[in-house]
């Protein structure tokens, strides 16, 4: 059976979105320019307590910087300022593999406000779901190209991806959900990273390529 996807359209209702690359010891926190599977999974776990397989992209965006200082309330002083990058955009799309029993729950999110990414306390991450539609067949035609987002390797089969020239990396995954964004048993799972050359439904492709397979 051919994979079907839901397209969840959202508008950004805050100053931006921060989906960080793994946080390093330094005082600068870079962001990634797309929504990886791990973030989509975490977000839907949090609001609906369901497992979904997905990824997302932003509309036109700029990468900007925001500097803040973490306050230690116990000691009543501010730590060294940290600069984080954030994505300034008006919205984006999250694509979720359609599974019938979860479709209604997701469709009911239209009009609701949710949080995507980090640093909610500083006014980031607020989004509003403005539409949920099934992706047209035309956008599911398989083409060869550069993968648009980081996805778990285990999604390759359900997303009907043929891997041609992979870049592997790791995305974090928790197995025991404790609620409120917390997990037990966190581990890094081998994943297919953005810009890998694949043959996949059009929605997963950023730039078409024409290599021999």
């Amino acid at each position, binding site marked *: 059976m051919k994979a079907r996807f839901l397209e969840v359209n959202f508008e950004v209702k805050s100053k931006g979105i921060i989906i960080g690359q793994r946080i390093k*010891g330094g005082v600068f926190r*870079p962001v990634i320019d797309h929504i990886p599977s791990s973030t989509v999974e975490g977000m839907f776990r949090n609001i609906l307590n369901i497992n979904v397989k997905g990824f997302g992209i932003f509309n036109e965006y700029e990468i900007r910087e925001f500097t803040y200082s973490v306050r230690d309330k116990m000691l009543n002083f501010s730590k060294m300022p940290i600069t984080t990058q954030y994505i300034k955009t008006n919205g984006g799309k999250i694509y979720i593999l359609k599974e019938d029993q979860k479709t209604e729950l997701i469709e009911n999110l239209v009009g609701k406000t949710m949080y995507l990414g980090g640093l909610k306390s500083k006014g980031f991450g607020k989004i509003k779901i403005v539409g949920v539609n099934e992706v047209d067949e035309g956008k599911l035609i398989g083409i060869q190209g550069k993968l648009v987002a980081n996805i778990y390797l285990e999604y390759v089969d359900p997303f009907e991806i043929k891997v041609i*020239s992979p870049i*592997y990396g790791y995305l974090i995954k928790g197995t025991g959900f404790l609620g409120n964004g917390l997990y037990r048993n966190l581990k890094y*799972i*081998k994943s297919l990273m953005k810009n890998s050359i694949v043959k996949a439904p059009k929605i997963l492709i950023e730039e078409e390529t*024409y*290599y021999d397979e």
Partner: protein
Amino acid sequence: MEGKFVPELHDIGKMIDRDKIVAELKSRGFKKISFVHTFEKFPFDELGLKKPVSMNWWGQYHHFRIGKKLIYEIDVNKWSFINVKDVDIKRSIIKKLFLLILSDHLSASISRALKRRTSIREKLTKLWNRNFNPTDKWIAFRNLNELSELFKEIDECNSGKEFLEKYFEKLHLTPEAKHIPLTTLYTHCMLTGKIFRVLEKVVEIGEDEDGFYLEYNGKRVKSVREAEGGNRTEKTDDPNDYRKGKWQFKLIKAKIRIPHYFTRLQHINVIKKRRELLEDLCMKYSDNILISTYDSVLIFAPINFELEDVFKNFLEWGFLIESIEIIADAGILSSNLDRKILEARRIVCSKGKKAAEKERNMLEILKERAKVKHVFLQKKMPDEIKPQICDICQISRGKERWKENVREWICESCLKIENMGIPFREYSEWDNLELRTIWFKIGINLEKLEKWLQRKFNEYVEEKIKNKYKEELKREFRSLALMSDFIEEYNRLLEEVYQKLCDEEILTIKRLPIEGYKELFVTLADDLNKIMKIINLFEKIYGKYFPNVEKDERSPINLSLTITTTKYPLREIWRFFKESEEKGGFINIFIQNIGGGSFTSKEIKEIIGLEITSAWFNLYKIYKEKRSEILYQVGVYNQYGKKAYDILKHHPEKIYILRRLLKSES
């Protein structure tokens, strides 16, 4: 038969003053002059000259004809000119001459199959520097007397390296082919030598009931033609032009990417590590690697060449290798074949099969003859990693450690990189000076270079050739040798830029931040207009080496500069440099807290040259807040008049960056 066979020597005859020698021969009564640049039919006996007898002599037969047929079309068993009785020696001569012809074809910048020659008979021309004039310095052998020297060279030369060194200057001033005089003979000889030695290791000569055969990858052939197949990629009336060859080889364009996330100054040692590994690689595979830059190599290899073995050391250190493999019949293998194929496929996909008939025909001809593959190579990675992952490479498990009150995780190989020492100790001391730093990098984009060379070649053909075959020439252009020449000039530019930066005291410390890596520099922003000094110096030297290369986004070379505090993460600076190289313009500037932009040389001069007041920033504010270009443009016209309006009306973001740059510098 004495001595080694030196393939580099095969075109030594191109270094003679042929016109003068022919005139001399005519004055001595020779009516029929039957040599062009090889001496297999030269009248040695009549002139009382000693004919060379070494193994090298047989290289002179690489354009030999028997009747109307050229040597590459003829069965090696019919190479009757090899009148040597000893079978082993004969076998050796056949193999060497066969491989020489094949490697000469592979390293040529125009397919040797093009029968229609041009009427051009010019000295060496550089597409990127049309002012270049080699005068007569290129001639190594001027008259019959000096020809004896040439024959002595053929007899006594035992090493290609020695030959290239001895005639370094003259080979650089002589064209590979006078009818398309765009490549230096030096590069052509060097490439021929390298390819020859790669072939020599994988091709065997054997004998069956029909005589000698040459075998590679289990495929036996008896003529060069049979091995390489047709030499053209587009249909012509001659079926030989596109028939399938039996031997296929690979050209691999590999880019060594740094996926590491720099956090500390020591982590830029990863660039040093890449340079060291690349140097080792170029030594180990000196023949396979035809072209190399600081981050890329172009490799010629047999079909079963395993890239993972070649890049094993890079993978262990966490580098990511991105490679494009062109696998094709020897007759059509060229470094720009991938671009031709991929572009044709793109056109067929976007226009449809009917509208793109020409491209479809080409792809049909190439169907069995060429493939283009994309391969990423990484070290082997487990399916999962228990937290935490290494902060730097992010593909291995990291060990916890505390450094400067920060908890970090680092894997063994990244720790080794860190332990290579602090590469530019002074940088951390600049912290206290409260001055900003300027990191700047010169880069070259080989993909852009290929496109640029093709475009300039097309323009050259349009300018010089008036006959109907010019389209064929454009199509069968091969960029490999010209790329090699261009990169050689680029390396000279880098040398000179560094020298001048030191001489003019633009560098605060007269040293490269990474020893031996001549593309990257850093200095303190302690002088007014230092950025402009750097840009002007770069442009001046660029203008000297590449006066005919545009100073805009079409140029394969670029300069990127960042102005940041010393605390600004080097990883972000590096990311800006890499993005600018791949997608940016001629000059790329990033200012911390302000932003970045790409500029042409003209834009910089025009914008900097304008006398505009700080009131312009108010207009920019209106543009950003109201998102209204019209309001902004009306304001500009009213305040600064028509002349300034023509410059200021476009790209307010670019103007903003440059004005802020001037403001922050002063």
